[in-house]
């Protein structure tokens, strides 16, 4: 599997990463090198092997259903470039 320059541009756009035209070829070869490595991994027979998600057998940590957070609207919007009455203000987005 390998990617062409169109795919590189599309992935960059979906990820909202600005990629200039002269960077595309370089990124394409980097991505293809990664994909070649994954291709190599694909050669390993993992039939019947459970995917390992953690080195130590750990359980997903859970929380009780209690309201313990929030009510910090000042802090939430503190770093927003623009705000109004505790709302974030962004350029118009509408369908």
């Amino acid at each position, binding site marked *: 599997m390998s990617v062409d320059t169109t795919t590189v541009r599309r992935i960059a756009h979906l990820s909202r990463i600005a990629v200039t035209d002269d960077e595309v070829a370089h990124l394409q070869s980097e991505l293809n090198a990664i994909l070649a490595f994954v291709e190599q991994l694909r050669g390993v027979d993992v039939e019947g092997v459970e995917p390992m998600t953690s080195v130590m057998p750990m359980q997903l940590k859970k929380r*009780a259903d209690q309201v313990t957070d929030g009510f910090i*609207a000042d802090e939430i919007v503190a770093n927003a470039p623009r705000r109004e009455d505790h709302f974030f203000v*962004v350029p118009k987005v509408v369908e």
Partner: protein
Amino acid sequence: MNTHVKPSKLVKGATGDWEIIVGMEVHAQVTSRAKLFSGASTEFGGEPNSHVSLIDAAMPGMLPVINAECVAQAVRTGLGLKAQINLTSVFDRKNYFYPDLPQGYQISQYKSPIVGEGEVIVDVSPTEQIRVGIERLHLEQDAGKSLHDQSATESLVDLNRSGVALMEIVSKPDLRSADEARAYVSKLRTIMRYLGTCDGNMEQGSLRADVNVSVRRPGDPLGTRCEIKNVNSIRFIGQAIEAEARRQIGIIEDGGVIEQETRLFDPTRGETRSMRSKEEAHDYRYFPDPDLLPLHLDQSYIETLAADLPELPDEKRARFIKDYALPPYDAGVLVADRESADFFESVAKGRDAKLAANWVINELFGRLNKEGQGIATSPVSAEQLAAIIDLISDGTISGKIAKDVFEIVWSEGGDPRALVESRGMKQVTDTGAIEAAIDQIIASNPDKVAQAQQKPTMLGWFVGQAMKATGGKANPQAVNTLLKAKLGI
């Protein structure tokens, strides 16, 4: 599942019949105090960004910790949908950019959802029941809310909803009409309200649906589908399906081709339109969320939750049919919500159940609907309605007078038995009094008497006069018997 094409479901086009195929993704807000991965409140409303933690705002370095109750609610819902509960499920990141999604991804479940295949039985009409397959149910985060009306050039973003737990319930493409789709969503809502897992409040956005619609010639393979996003009322779901099916049939019959796309339903114009901005968003690049381990459940945990489930609508309906000998449709109406079913049961207990059902459905529900009220705010309590039914059953009042008593209780309140006493509404069963009234009518209408003897259907006129003379309080049966005897018919 519904493999047979039902002719009644087909839609007539200019060139012949078409079958509508609908599948739905229903987003149901989980009833919980705190959000899916943070300790912020889920309460509706609230000042902008007040129910937001640093996790919900996606501040760097914050880690999600799952709310155990949201997991339990998803399992309960899965059990209520008679579905497979998966002992291992995985949270994935669904990547897209939008101002109300500060993380840049939604935590959702993609390949391994918490609930697998199930089935819902749906009553479409008094005579038609369908089975709708459930494909899966998964847990995911809700996004924030953007307000567009405040300014021409800016949108305001409130993250209060951001991170609230949703259950996405995906149906199989088993629905064949707008009616079936509406009935399916109503049934899902009923089940979740019984379970207490989603309040089903569509005005507050607790239940929204994405509707997939395609059309085909009966017997053909599935056509290309379009997805109508975020339809937020049961009525609109029906309208959106009908409008979209008409649009697709029109295009195909004119020789065109349906393009797979995301559309939006515009209720004021009654049509769907393309949401071009969403087209590229279909490439979500899902991958397992590295912040969260897989969710493992024990069989014993599931069994504990199953043991604590309330009686579900289908079971309750079956019990009402069996124990109270109610017609299936009446039973279905009564179990549509838990409060109505409880109300009926307290009225019916130890009484004529059919009479109780008629009164609850026709008089009470009829009146509540007319006034736009729900059972919870009914001015007539179960005890009061039960007392009215007792008065009918023991012959104190007729069914007709009972309606007057119901009116008085509805508007003024009070104890029905005391009201009947104090206002002299008791049925006259004393034959002497009835006889006197009848004798009077016969004496003053000799011509009618002669007619009646020729034409026995004239009896109705005499019954009417007798009821009038006694202020509607005469026992109708006693009147009939006496009249027949006296007129010799």
